């Protein structure tokens, strides 16, 4: 049996209403005003590694191709440098659209499981939720454990460098009023709300 793969989308592959939902997220209002000029893709330092360029992502989102954008590596390769946002002639905040898509992919659990970028976002989120501050080296160690602990061995020189120069904080940083922050986060919908469900 010859395996075949369809390379062009049918209209039926769309998830109606997805574009409108993203457009309603703060920062994404101007989604529909895109003229597909490609300035964002041209200015993005990482677009050459993306499966869909930023221009294509904008087109796919507003055409309701939810599954395609949420499963793409594009949103996770966005480093948040905001070059596209300041260059866009239609004043679309493309970086904010990328954030809205990242949130959506995490909430729906469709991000690549051991891919280090969403794992980093989640570990960072958890550490701040519990401690109020980030201890960078602990975060890096957790990231290695959850993704590719062999990679930690490959970075031993860097680890030694960090220790030699005294940049390593062994003490886990935290704020004093942790209960205060936890209460605030619960109000924002964190503690047992929507975000936690997804994690």
């Amino acid at each position, binding site marked *: 049996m010859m395996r075949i793969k369809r390379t062009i989308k049918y209209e039926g592959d769309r998830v109606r209403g997805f574009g409108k939902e993203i457009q309603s997220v703060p920062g994404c209002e101007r989604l529909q005003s895109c003229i597909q000029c490609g300035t964002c893709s041209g200015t993005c330092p990482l677009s050459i590694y993306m499966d869909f360029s930023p221009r294509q992502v904008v087109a796919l989102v507003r055409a309701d191709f939810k599954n395609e954008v949420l499963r793409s590596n594009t949103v996770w390769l966005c480093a948040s*440098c905001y070059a596209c*946002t300041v260059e866009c002639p239609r004043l679309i905040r493309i970086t904010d659209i990328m*954030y809205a898509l990242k949130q959506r992919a995490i909430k729906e659990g469709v991000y690549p499981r051991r891919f280090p970028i969403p794992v*980093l976002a989640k570990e960072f989120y958890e550490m701040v939720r519990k401690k109020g501050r980030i201890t960078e080296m602990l975060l890096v160690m957790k990231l290695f454990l959850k993704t590719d602990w062999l990679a930690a061995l490959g970075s031993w*020189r860097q680890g030694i460098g960090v220790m030699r120069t005294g940049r390593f904080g062994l003490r886990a940083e935290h704020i004093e009023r942790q209960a205060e922050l936890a209460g*605030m986060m619960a109000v924002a919908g964190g503690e047992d709300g929507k975000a936690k469900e997804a994690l």
Partner: protein
Amino acid sequence: MKYSYFPGCSLKGLGRAYEESLLPVMRHLGVELAELNDWNCCGATAYMSVDESMAAVLAARNLAIAEKAGPEDLLTPCSACYLVLNKTKHNITDYPEINATVRKALAGAHLTYSGKVPVRHPLDVLINDVGLDVIKEKVVRPLKGLKVAPYYGCQIVRPYATFDDAWNPTTMDRLLATLGAEVVDYPLKTKCCGGSLTGTVPEAGLRLTYILLKEAVRRGADVIATVCPLCQFNLDAYHDQIDRRWEPARVATVYFTQLMGLAFGLPPEQLGLKRNMVAMKPLPAEPAKVKV
């Protein structure tokens, strides 16, 4: 001159040399900094990726504590913190739903936010409040002959900064020139360093860092001056990987505040310079004074 001070997590961790040099330099200029009581992480890029309302509340707690502390502007040296705190200010103003969530969350902790405390970067304060003339008076060891590539990175000039240009910022260039340094023309000054992708997807992220280093070397820079703890780490801590993947591009990367300290004649050992993995070379010898 007095400011509230939000160090952020990096300035207490991998980027501690930034704080170690910022504090004595500001003290030397008569600028008083009061660290925010019980500040928390700004949320950086990670929180915005997970939950929008929680990201806003997290940043707003710091803004509210700053308001409670007094009328002083909030000094924020880390680029990510500077962007997140300013972005949150904009979002609270522009979106009633975010405003409502933030208000409700703050009220539970007996905090309020009115938006009156500006969030400012040290470069802004040094140029516009302290002034280059005052800085010039403090220079006792001009950085003559030191070629410096001014690297701003992305998040202080894009997209919320009001004190400099998003495409061709010049505040650090002018500051370095005031210190007597030779400012290298560095067109990559606002290009992305790769952020956390240097560690997570090195073939893409680390290449951006490599390009920045290679260009600084090609243009003859003795040192790269930076304003961001993540840029400093990326440009300083990955050289052995860069050597293996591409070719060596050795040049030291230091905080602009460390160069200020050297020019002010502050002891180098008190400026966190030993934290560098690629050490900065000693300053070029001062020209012998000619007796008239």
